[in-house]
């Protein structure tokens, strides 16, 4: 209950405060929300179902490219394109998931296959003229038009991504408190025992995959509209996949608020150290790496997972899987 009160207060602050923030902090906050959102999307498959995808860039990229191409080529509003991208990503996720799960790929093997699927899409995008090849796609300067997902100031984008992050957390909470959520945790813990207890492991994992990939694609569209530029490396590259899962692991994989909390710790740290250490290229990344090592060593269940008293409520896995 105290956690809910705390989350409510934090949300109130996130709604009220941003108009008074300097632009630089608003930009950081937008990054926090985007990464928190991506972490939450990844968390449903990776944290709850324990299926460590290294390839969520595939869905992010599908979302970014689908809405952008629909807008540039056909003039379809990116709001609709966003949904189309989500559906397409979910379909791709279901196909990739079915192929992986059907043939019993678990643990690191599943991770590698998802990475391969994302890389495959990146290479296709690099080599396809129709989608801009390696130069990517620019969404040209246009008049602000909320109906086309174009806003005058950053503040509007902030409220869009805030709403998306809140939505993702709400969906996670709904999932966690349903048969699906319990089934996913059981699969994460022990797939054979879950099957023996009546859990349709394949069906449940595919459901998690569909939700996770759909949500991730919406994040891709947001990215495209916010930065007005996408290319294959930014959208389909491994760094998007890793960013998403890092927020979740550091914040607490398999917890409702973990990914967002993780984003609040990691993203400002990354941004501020990059700004502070400008001119010393790479030092900020080293610092980031050190903090990651410390978190994983001393808070193996993530920040939210470690706050939880043992024996109370939902457990989350000790340490980072993949051993």
């Amino acid at each position, binding site marked *: 209950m105290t956690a809910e009160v705390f989350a409510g207060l934090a949300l109130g602050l996130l709604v009220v405060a941003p108009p008074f923030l300097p632009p630089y902090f608003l930009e950081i906050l937008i990054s926090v929300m985007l990464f928190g959102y991506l972490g939450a999307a990844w968390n449903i498959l990776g944290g709850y179902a324990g299926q460590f995808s290294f390839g969520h860039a595939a869905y992010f990229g599908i979302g970014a490219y689908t809405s952008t191409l629909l807008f540039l080529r056909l003039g379809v509003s990116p709001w609709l394109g966003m949904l189309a991208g989500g559906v397409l990503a979910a379909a791709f996720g279901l196909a990739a998931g079915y192929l992986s799960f059907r043939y019993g790929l678990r643990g690191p093997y599943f991770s590698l296959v998802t990475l391969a699927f994302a890389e495959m899409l990146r290479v296709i995008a690099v080599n396809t003229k129709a989608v801009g090849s390696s130069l990517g796609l620019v969404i040209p300067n246009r008049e602000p038009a909320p109906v086309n997902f174009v806003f005058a100031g950053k503040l509007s984008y902030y409220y869009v991504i805030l709403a998306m992050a809140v939505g993702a957390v709400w969906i996670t909470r709904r999932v966690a408190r349903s048969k699906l959520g319990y089934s996913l945790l059981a699969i994460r813990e022990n797939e054979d025992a*879950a099957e023996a207890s009546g859990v349709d492991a394949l069906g449940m994992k595919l459901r998690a995959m569909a939700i996770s990939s759909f949500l991730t694609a919406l994040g891709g569209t947001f990215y495209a509209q916010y930065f007005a530029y996408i290319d294959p490396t930014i959208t389909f590259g491994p760094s998007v996949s890793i960013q998403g899962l890092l927020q979740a692991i550091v914040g607490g994989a398999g917890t409702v608020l973990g990914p967002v909390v993780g984003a609040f710790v990691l993203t400002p740290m990354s941004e501020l150290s990059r700004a502070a250490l400008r001119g010393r290229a790479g030092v900020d990344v080293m610092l980031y790496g050190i903090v990651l090592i410390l978190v994983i060593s001393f808070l193996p269940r993530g920040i939210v997972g470690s706050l939880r008293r043992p024996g109370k409520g939902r457990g989350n896995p000790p340490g980072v899987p993949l051993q």
Partner: protein
Amino acid sequence: MRMNLLEVDAVTKRFGGLTAVSRFSLTVDAGDIVGLIGPNGAGKTTVFHLLSGFYAPSEGAIRFKGASVVGAKPHAICRRGLARTFQIVQPFVNLSALENVMVGAFNRTGDVKAARQCALEVLDFVGLGARRDVLARELTLSDRKRLEMARGLATRPELLLLDEVMSGLNPTEIEEIIGLIRRIHAQGVSLLIIEHVMRAIMALSQRIVVLHHGEKIAEGRPADVARDPTVVEAYLGEEA
């Protein structure tokens, strides 16, 4: 005539050149407690894997409530009313006892409240009511065995397969588990039990099947099986 709950007809399971189970047949009727015994490596757990859908038989037929379960996935077999425990207990270690059992309860309901209610009843039934919020990783072996049975029971099975639920327990705990198994049976659940604790299996079973090198070498009432020279030689002889 009583209904054949489970019919196993000449089932063979080969792993490459190794025949783990050979032309094994068995029937379990509604209301039965059947014991499955045999020396280590006799193929008992392989039989459980075959019945619960973790292995597909190389040959032969398995019917549950009259319908073939060959090729069905474990969760589908569980849905039809055949649940099992694992010889090496497989709790969901990072979940509480209650959550573990709720997973089983979802076999019969999609509703969280109903699953929770069912799980609480089953936890009380097996004597784990007071430990419902304890993480499974923190339970004693004896409690984990109860948890394993509770998770199976929560799926509301007609036939429950128990794989060595007494191994590693002390005599007092064994007595308690025997009592629990009798109460499960009294609730109308039929049981097929693998057990090395002879005293327990002899006391519980109405009928005992003896497996040796993957073949059934004897079947009958406990007292008769215990006197059977083949069994004494194959099983009890080896123990001595």
